[in-house]
């Protein structure tokens, strides 16, 4: 199919300058057909013998090799210029920083409060006011980032890993292995997330993040595995994979060297967007009381306890909800930007 433009950095076949160089087949300029009305009057140059090995040292090509642009660096180049990406990346960087070091911007105590100040509005040194138990809402909001970011990142990593491996292997091997996996994934797809959360997590007494992470991974891997399977099936049929097989490559090499690097792009896109939804999911589960539990600080818990007092003291609800929304939005925007940067390369 004709392409509208030639590659942007054309690599010229070497121009033939000196005549003592090994043959440059692309530069053969004269030839004659043995018969036919169009015999060339041009002289036929004797063609030097092909040699397997270059006998004469090659004259240096002018200058260093120009910028080598792999597909990832192309994507990165696009990303850097996307304002959506820059903005969301900044926000996320900020969130991760305060998740790791909340003390950087909040030096209060999120666990203890002064009951006398319960539900009070903003006061000097406490810009967001106080919650039901007199704790500083600002401090709790800042500390809440930790739970959300941890759950988001760990759950995504787990789901992506599990999903890619299972889906990728299913797509690669096909056959009954693929059928089995698809049916298992269907089972998990069929479990409604919130209902499942209510059932599974209600038996868990620990309030730490890990049961929630585990649950999200358990219900989130089918989505990733479907994407991974589709990507692997597409890549598996490409000629370069077949070429590797004709060279004698084993399954391991084909999976790691050829299939994985080319199939990973859609998984990255989906995982990045899923991150945002997982954070929202954690907040929802905590809101329902089955996710994180006190003393872990979570926006969902705060929203839950503040929801009854929304008329009297809206600030208790407002700030954690806003923080949650901004976080989720940032990750989803990041996912969008990543998809836009990677997608043209998929085409």
């Amino acid at each position, binding site marked *: 199919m004709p392409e509208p433009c*030639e*590659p942007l*950095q*054309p*690599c010229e*076949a*070497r121009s033939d300058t000196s005549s003592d160089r*090994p*043959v*440059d*087949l*692309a*530069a*053969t300029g004269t*030839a004659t057909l043995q018969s036919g009305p169009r015999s060339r009057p041009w002289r036929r140059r004797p063609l030097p*013998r*092909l040699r*397997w*090995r*270059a006998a004469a040292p*090659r004259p240096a*090509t002018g200058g260093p*090799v120009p910028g*080598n*642009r*792999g*597909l*990832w660096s192309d994507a990165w180049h696009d990303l850097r210029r996307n304002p959506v990406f820059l903005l969301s990346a900044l926000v996320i960087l900020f969130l991760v920083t305060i998740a790791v070091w909340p003390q950087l911007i909040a030096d209060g105590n999120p666990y203890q409060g002064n009951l006398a100040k319960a539900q009070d509005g903003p006061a000097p040194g406490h810009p967001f006011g106080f919650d039901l138990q007199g704790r500083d809402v600002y401090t709790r909001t800042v500390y809440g980032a930790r739970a959300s970011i941890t759950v988001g990142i760990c759950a995504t990593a787990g789901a992506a890993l599990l999903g890619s491996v299972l889906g990728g292997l299913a797509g690669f091997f096909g056959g009954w292995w693929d059928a089995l996996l698809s049916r298992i994934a269907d089972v998990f797809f069929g479990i409604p997330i919130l209902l499942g959360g209510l059932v599974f997590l209600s038996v868990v007494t620990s309030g730490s993040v890990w049961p929630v992470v585990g649950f999200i991974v358990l219900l989130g891997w089918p989505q990733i595995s479907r994407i991974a399977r589709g990507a692997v099936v597409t890549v598996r049929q*490409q*000629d*370069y994979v*077949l*070429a*590797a*097989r*004709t*060279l*004698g*490559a084993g399954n391991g*090499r084909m999976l790691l*060297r*050829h299939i994985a*690097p*080319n199939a990973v792009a859609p998984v990255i896109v989906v995982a990045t967007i899923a991150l945002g939804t997982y954070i929202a999911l954690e907040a929802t589960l905590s809101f329902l009381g089955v996710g994180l539990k006190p003393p872990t600080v979570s926006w969902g818990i705060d929203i839950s306890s503040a929801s009854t007092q929304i008329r009297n003291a809206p600030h208790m609800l407002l700030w954690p909800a806003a923080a949650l929304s901004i976080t989720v939005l940032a990750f989803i925007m990041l996912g969008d930007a990543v998809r836009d940067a990677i997608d043209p390369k998929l085409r």
Partner: protein
Amino acid sequence: MASTPSTPSAPPVPSAPSAADPAAPVLEVRGLAKLYPLTRGVVVKRRTGAVRAVDTVSFDLRRGETLGVVGESGCGKSTLARLLVGLERPTAGSIRYRGEDIARLSGRALRAVRRNIQMVFQDPYTSLNPRMTVGDIIGEPYEIHPDAAPKGDRRRAVRDLLDVVGLDPEHANRYPHQFSGGQRQRIGIARGLALRPEVIVADEPVSALDVSVQAQVVNLLERLQDEFGLAYVFIAHDLSVVRHISDRVAVMYLGRFAETGTGTEIYDHPTHPYTQALLSAVPVPDPEARARPRQRILLPGDVPSPADPPTGCRFRTRCWKAEPRCAADPPALAVPPELTGGAAHPSACHFAAEGTTA
């Protein structure tokens, strides 16, 4: 024998005793067939038929020779290519490389044999891994078969290969998308040459290229053949290119060879109706031909589906010579006894003749 390369050579692949005779064919294919079963049902699959992609194909290939396989889409030539390089397992038949049947091999034995039969793919845009540098792509055969080039020499071997196909070795750490279609095809050829095969199966290697680039690549392939004594199975639908490069030609239709012979025999003395129709349909770049209207045979209808081919002779549904005998009795690919001279070559038709009259 052709010149031996001067890079440190690997120990030769052990060959069967009959290979001592240099005139023996490098490749002997007998009765090759590939059927794809058609099934219905999800859990329990019931077989409802089969696509006979390749149905009893036989030929010999000698060292340094080019066999051109021509046919239109759906004739099974791509399946034939994949069978020859081991990407598919034949349902029946044998492929003998130097006397040893490689069609049923697997595992390490198959790996060892793969070094001798390599493939060049059609689409220069999908035959190279876009995330690997060109040097890595060409060097991969050496990673898979470390005995083909010792570690220290690999870089030099890659550079030599790039040089041999007419590319600048300095570009070894560029990515495929930085090259044009013709250059990518050269990279694919370099990769195919890395293991010093004896046979290269080229599946439409120039179809996706521009006219002026086609000539470059065809010239390159011919040079490499002369220099390294390669045998080619050149599969294409472009009759002009096949004529140019081939020593012998096989015309394929719906999984079978309709006619085989040397280039001159097929192109100047075609005896099978399909070949005649094919040749008459090829546009000749000479407007004078318009003034003397050549006999253009227009075949009615479409190619029948390979899942349900006609009984007997597969071409009979579109053939102007068809008679009841053709439906009952599949013609064998044999030299028609009554023909002589250039027309005396194998042709699978009961009424094979040089003229087109029935």
